[in-house]
């Protein structure tokens, strides 16, 4: 029986399920590498283009938030990324080592007085494009889920 290393890679329950956890430095280049890896899993499972678009956008926003705002680009701090993907759903957790924040403290970026301010839009886009977005109580870990889009057109020969 093979023993998996306790850190980097966890087991997958079947061929279509992939589950992994990685720790990356507070560096957006490392973030993009994980982003590509996760997007690759969606593409392998033929997720709809719109799902891939939404997940990539949400991942970008969440990783930038964790690396810049959470860890303040501190090279001594890391970001934990957990991903579980199968043919119907993807779940991603992104946790930084910052103090966290409370989502209700973020101003509404669509209010007229905030329209020209560059804040809060990342969270708004994550909420719009993902099926679920939640933060832990501390506010330093975001949980994102996206269910696979199944279009009626796919079932037809149209």
């Amino acid at each position, binding site marked *: 029986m093979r023993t998996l290393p306790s850190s980097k890679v966890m087991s997958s329950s079947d061929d279509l399920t992939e589950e992994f956890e990685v720790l990356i430095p507070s560096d957006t280049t490392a973030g993009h590498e994980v982003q590509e890896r996760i997007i690759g899993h969606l593409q392998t499972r033929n997720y709809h283009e719109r799902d891939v*678009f939404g997940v990539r*956008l949400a991942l*970008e926003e969440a990783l930038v938030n964790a690396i810049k705002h959470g860890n303040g680009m501190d090279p001594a701090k890391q970001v934990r990324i957990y991903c579980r993907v199968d043919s119907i759903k993807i779940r991603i957790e992104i946790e930084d080592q910052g103090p966290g924040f409370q989502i209700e403290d973020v101003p509404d970026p669509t209010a007229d007085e905030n*329209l*020209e301010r560059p804040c809060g*839009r990342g969270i*708004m886009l994550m909420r719009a494009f993902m099926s679920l977005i939640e933060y832990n109580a501390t506010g330093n870990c975001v949980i994102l889920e996206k269910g696979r889009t199944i279009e009626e057109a796919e079932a037809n020969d149209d």
Partner: protein
Amino acid sequence: MAAGNRRVDVEEVNGVTVAKFTDKKILDEGNIQLIGNQLFSLVDEDRRMKIVLDFSNVEYLSSAALGKLITMDKKVKSINGKLRFCSIRSDILEVFKITRLDKLFTIKENQEQALDGI
């Protein structure tokens, strides 16, 4: 600006500056910084008054990029210039709509419409 850093192709069409993004993904922070600097210089240094931003190559755009577009819009308005966006694919247009920035920016379907009457 060094050619290798060029993220936006700029041309003049009937007295209007047409700036076309060369990247498919406007996500990376360094990239967004370069794009911002190149766009801002059109206003700050060249004092161009009529600018059309062509998004036909753009497939992804993050909120950090939206921040640069908001700043660009402010700069153009501050010199009483005109700024229009065009050729935005539907996914990206949705990003503008969700954030209500479609109300702030003037968005046209294609370059021809963007140039018309600017």
